[in-house]
């Protein structure tokens, strides 16, 4: 067994991050219960996308039978353990916090709302719970199956395992495409159940991949810094950097596609989603998200030398990981912006029916700029939970899949000049 153990000091720092996260969550619950629930949803969803990205990324490597990534594979495979914690938090949100976040869960609101009545066949509490359990059972089950198969290959050196991984990868990717789109709709889009766009799952998929790749890069570089994963050289990190760059650019593409179509069609049922995110302090928040998530990492990572340098790649990965959390906050908190004054004004105007749809019934407790120290604490907490769980799981097994038939090819991997 070729294992690796991170120094106790780093683990203590990660536990400290978890402590900051717990503290921030408790403080936000004490200050404002609704904001506490919204923060917990953002925290849990961020953990979910980090845990999902590893399985998704590993499955793409199995299915394409990529050889360069064999030495990188163990970190993504181990991220599946995070899904358990994410599920625990989302289960709490979906039971105790449901009424605070999702207006379709209130029978009295639905009774006075024709649109929500029409959607009640899908958006109702029991079916919501069933869906959550199905998603997480399948994601966790198949992810653990990947990990088990891949680890069994370490001893047996059986090349047929790679073929089994390919087959289960196809199953996973097919299921993932549908289940992720539905899960995004359930957890985030149904916060604003009157609003609709078909591009929202794609936008979230791009954000998931960017965040996932950047957190994988952070963990790999952290392990390399303390002497582990010697098989991974600058050539492999260069490719990881390319993944980050590509998915980050794809994220910007989806943001633009979603916003531009809404802007062009100019339907009141759709535009209020962006309109309230471009009013007051939120305009700065939205712009800093778009600039910080796309432009800064884009020009940072565009050069070959940045992608090959561990320091610069680590910086870029931290920027995109942090911005991934800002993105989740943008989606979750945006549903609860305090726009009562504007709605009251609009109700007297001609488009009263649209204004009523736009008014969030559950609460509008987000006043002003939404991102503060508590949100930074939640981000650090999520990174701490992710790093702690994944690294603990990583320490139990081999650092690289030693029985994979493509291992030698991966070790010899070389980027053309």
């Amino acid at each position: 067994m070729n294992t690796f153990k991170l120094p106790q000091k780093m683990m203590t720092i990660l536990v400290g991050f978890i402590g900051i996260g717990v503290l921030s969550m408790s403080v936000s619950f004490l200050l404002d219960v609704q904001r506490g629930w919204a923060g917990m949803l953002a925290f849990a969803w961020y953990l979910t996308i980090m845990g999902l990205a590893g399985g998704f990324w590993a499955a793409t490597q199995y299915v394409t039978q990529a050889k360069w990534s064999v030495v990188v594979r163990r970190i993504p495979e181990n991220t599946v353990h995070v899904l358990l914690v994410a599920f625990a938090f989302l289960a709490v949100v979906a039971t105790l916090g449901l009424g605070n976040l999702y207006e379709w869960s209130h029978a009295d609101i639905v009774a006075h709302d024709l649109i929500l009545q029409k959607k009640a066949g899908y958006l109702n509490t029991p079916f919501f719970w069933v869906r959550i359990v199905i998603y997480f059972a399948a994601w966790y089950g198949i992810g653990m199956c990947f990990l088990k198969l891949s680890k069994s290959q370490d001893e047996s050196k059986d090349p047929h395992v790679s073929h089994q991984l390919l087959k289960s990868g196809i199953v996973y990717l097919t299921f993932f495409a549908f289940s992720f789109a539905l899960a995004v709709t359930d957890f985030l889009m149904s916060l604003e159940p009157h609003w609709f766009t078909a591009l929202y799952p794609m936008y979230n998929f791009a954000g998931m991949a960017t965040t996932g790749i950047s957190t994988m890069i952070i963990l790999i570089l952290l392990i390399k810094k303390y002497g582990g994963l010697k098989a991974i050289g600058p050539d492999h990190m260069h490719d990881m950097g390319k993944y980050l760059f590509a998915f980050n650019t794809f994220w910007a593409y989806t943001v633009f596609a979603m916003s531009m179509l809404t802007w062009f069609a100019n339907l009141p049922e759709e535009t209020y989603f962006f309109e309230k995110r471009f009013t007051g302090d939120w305009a700065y928040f939205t712009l800093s998200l778009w600039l910080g998530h796309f432009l800064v990492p884009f020009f940072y990572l565009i050069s070959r030398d940045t992608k090959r340098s561990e320091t610069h790649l680590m910086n870029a990965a931290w920027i995109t990981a942090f911005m991934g959390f800002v993105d989740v906050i943008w989606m979750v908190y945006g549903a609860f912006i305090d726009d009562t004054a504007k709605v009251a004004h609009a109700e007297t105007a001609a488009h009263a029916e649209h204004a009523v749809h736009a008014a969030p019934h559950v609460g509008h407790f987000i006043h002003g700029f939404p991102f503060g120290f508590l949100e930074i604490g939640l981000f650090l907490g999520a990174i701490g939970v992710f790093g702690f769980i994944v690294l603990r799981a990583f320490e139990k097994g081999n650092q690289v899949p030693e029985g994979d038939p493509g291992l030698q090819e991966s070790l010899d991997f070389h980027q053309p000049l």
Partner: protein
Amino acid sequence: MPSFKEIKEGLFSYEEVDSGYVVRVKDAHDLLEAAKKVRDAGINRFDTFAPFPIHGMSEAMGLKRSWLPFITLIGGITGFTANISYIGYITLIDWPIIYGGKGFFNFPSMFPLFFEIMILFASLSTVGGFMALSGMGSINRKPPISEATSDGFAIWIGDAMPESEVKKILGSLAMEIRSVN
């Protein structure tokens, strides 16, 4: 009226194997070693011939990184700014017209256009830059040994030096040394 061949030769200049020695080596691995040795000996005019691309040959020969990515970047930036100025000139100065109720300069609706033109400029400048940098015209260059198109590996040393010097540099790697006139 110049002939087609004359035009082609006028457009592209390339280094012909016209002097020095052509040395055959056994296989791709030996060719890599030979390239490293020749580079370390400080010889500037040399080239390698193999039937297929060899990983690590650029580093072994000490080739510098290509300028092609910068040409692509500059092409992309040029296309983006040129198209913004063009659309801006049309919609703001030359023929301002409101359509779709969106105002004169529709940045979001024009953005796909900027994007596409940026890609067009970037890709065309990449193709052109690639042709210029790689000396695309020299595809009609004759290999110094005919086996280089099937199963032979050779290194050409262009500097003028005695044959014993070549032997000293390459050592046991050299299978057959042929002088070029």
